[in-house]
């Protein structure tokens, strides 16, 4: 592990986290990306912007959400105290809304009236459609045709909220392809349109901006842990697709050397199967969607399809700050298979009466592996990044007709 004075200073002024990040976009988008950066920098310094962001998080999203002590899971696993950060209780049912509130305020500040976004599981699409309804903005959501099929309730929800959902047929018709088409839309509508990226990835300033908006998760955990236990947690566990819920939880704690942090990637059918979405474990650095980061790719630099039962983790890349945190050794990255995630999904549902998103079930599965090895005074925070209502059909299909529920 590299010992730095701080792990929280990135990115540099060019948007680089060490080797990673940057602004690898077509020239048509560069002036706009620079404008987003300028506008964001100004907004952060404007107390009125922060005030409105905080007000909406409190009164519209319903923050702070609880840090819930899961007594039955704690008892079952027989070690660390399991604390669930309840992002699933946010309005729209996932952490995605935190970032959407921040970015819609920025878009309005920039005078944009049309919002585009990509979505995988549909959580970011729903959150985006929600804030567009709230602010009266036109909303176009790009979604892979495969994901539309497996996330039907969210698709209808977006339409109810007034969004146009554009199916993307290219490639495997999942999140990567949706992001390609969103970028193509943006190039063609630069004047009117703001691209509301859903994860801590893409060209600078998005990875840093999305992280900042999501850092409310970690800041609340800090305050809640101090208030209840008089100390900080000992470990943090979060699932990673693009990595926004994880970076939001981790970032406020990166300079607390005693706190262990674990990011959990989706291993799909297994890392050796070739059908997974674990870009840190199975990929290497490359350039896609505006940033350099770890990517699943072949020896010629062609991007490979990811696979995960969880549509929200089904992406061959990862946010650049995670790539940097992996190389520096500050955060530990592991992976969990579809089957393990499904088991954790059922366990949490049955033992705690909380139906977790399949994404968050990856974090739960890993917590279940390590909790028993840790002392009983160990405080482990798991980010329950979303609720699993959207996944009920997927789970039913995976478990089979009449399968053990």
């Amino acid at each position, binding site marked *: 592990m590299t010992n730095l004075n701080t792990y929280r200073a990135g990115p540099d002024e060019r948007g680089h986290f060490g080797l990673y990040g940057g602004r690898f976009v077509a*020239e*048509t988008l560069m002036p706009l990306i620079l404008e987003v950066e300028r506008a964001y920098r100004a907004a952060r310094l404007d107390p009125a912007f922060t005030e409105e962001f905080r007000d909406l998080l409190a009164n519209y999203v319903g923050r702070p959400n609880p840090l819930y002590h899961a007594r039955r899971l704690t008892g079952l696993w027989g070690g660390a105290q399991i604390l669930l950060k309840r992002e699933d209780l946010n309005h729209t049912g996932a952490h995605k809304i935190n970032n959407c509130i921040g970015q819609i305020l920025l878009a309005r500040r920039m005078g944009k009236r049309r919002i585009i976004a990509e979505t995988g599981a549909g959580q970011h699409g729903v959150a985006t459609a929600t804030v567009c309804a709230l602010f009266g903005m036109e909303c176009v959501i790009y979604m892979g045709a495969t994901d539309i099929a497996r996330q039907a309730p969210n698709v209808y929800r977006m339409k109810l909220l007034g969004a146009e959902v554009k199916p993307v047929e290219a*490639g495997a018709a999942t999140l990567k392809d949706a992001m390609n088409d969103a970028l193509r839309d943006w190039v063609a509508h630069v004047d009117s349109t703001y691209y509301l990226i859903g994860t801590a990835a893409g060209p600078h300033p998005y990875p840093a901006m999305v992280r900042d908006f999501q850092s409310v998760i970690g800041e609340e955990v800090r305050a809640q842990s101090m208030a209840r236990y008089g100390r900080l947690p000992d470990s943090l566990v979060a699932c990673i697709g693009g990595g926004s819920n994880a970076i939001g939880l981790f970032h406020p704690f990166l300079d607390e050397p005693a706190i262990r942090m674990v990011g959990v990637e989706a291993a799909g059918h297994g890392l050796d199967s070739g059908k997974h979405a674990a870009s840190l474990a199975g990929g290497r650095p490359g*350039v896609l*969607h505006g940033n350099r980061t770890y990517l699943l790719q072949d020896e*010629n630099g062609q991007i490979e399809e990811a696979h995960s039962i969880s549509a929200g983790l089904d992406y061959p890349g990862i946010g650049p700050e995670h790539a940097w945190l992996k190389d520096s050794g500050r955060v530990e990255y592991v992976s969990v298979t579809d089957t393990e995630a499904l088991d954790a999904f059922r366990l949490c549902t049955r033992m705690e009466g909380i139906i977790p998103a399949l994404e968050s079930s990856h974090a739960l599965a890993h917590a279940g592996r390590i909790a028993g090895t840790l002392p009983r005074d160990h405080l482990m925070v798991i980010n329950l990044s979303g609720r699993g209502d959207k996944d009920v059909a997927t789970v039913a299909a995976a478990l089979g007709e009449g399968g053990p529920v």
Partner: protein
Amino acid sequence: MSRLKARFQALKAENRAALITYIMACDPDRESSQKLLDALPSAGADIIEFGMPFTDPMADGPAIQLAARRALAAGGSLALTLEMVARFRQTDRDTPVVLMGYYNPVYTRGPERFCREAAEAGVDGLIIVDLPPEEVDELLPHARAQGIDFIFLATPTSDEARLPQVVSRASGFVYYVSIAGITGTRSADEAAVADAVARIRRHTDLPVCVGFGIKSPEQAAAIARIADGVVVGSAIVQAATDLGNAGALDLVRGLATGIRGAAVAENGTGK
């Protein structure tokens, strides 16, 4: 003198614009693509843009997206692209070849190695769509060291403040992307293109070539009166797909005739 420089000087003497034709390497397969590449100069192409296939062509419209998919399905790669250029060079020593594509395959091969191999194969220029001036330093010096021109894109969104940054390190030519959009979709308004080309010329003495959305001999002729070069891509790729190489070459001949006609018309009006 570089092939690109020599070609633009020769065209200046003829008082006409260059026809720059784009095709994708290995689309729909290596053999057919090689035949089309080899036949382009005699059909009237002055400069060839040769597409390097990539899985995620974010700046491209449907025609070139599908071309990339076909090329990859046929085993297309950066290595094969370079081999095809080398074979082309066995019979054509004069027509400049510019590779166009996305950065990840180049980055994967290694910028230094890629530029060395490209120069050996007979490549004259590079257009890397997702490498704006802000990120170009990791590739540009290697291209320069090998005598390969680095072609920057100027767009309708490149304002007066940004244009100098875009053109200051360019060589070969400046590629004006005539619409804010992806390839092979909308066509630009001629007057707007004329304004933009004039604006770019205030910042550079390099030839200014115009592409995106140019499909017909008439459109090519119109742009040829304004710019130093006319780039046609999606229309040629689509013609090859629908009508085979013969159909694509017919289109190239038509475009070439259009551009040459523009030169005559221009002379005729005494401009």
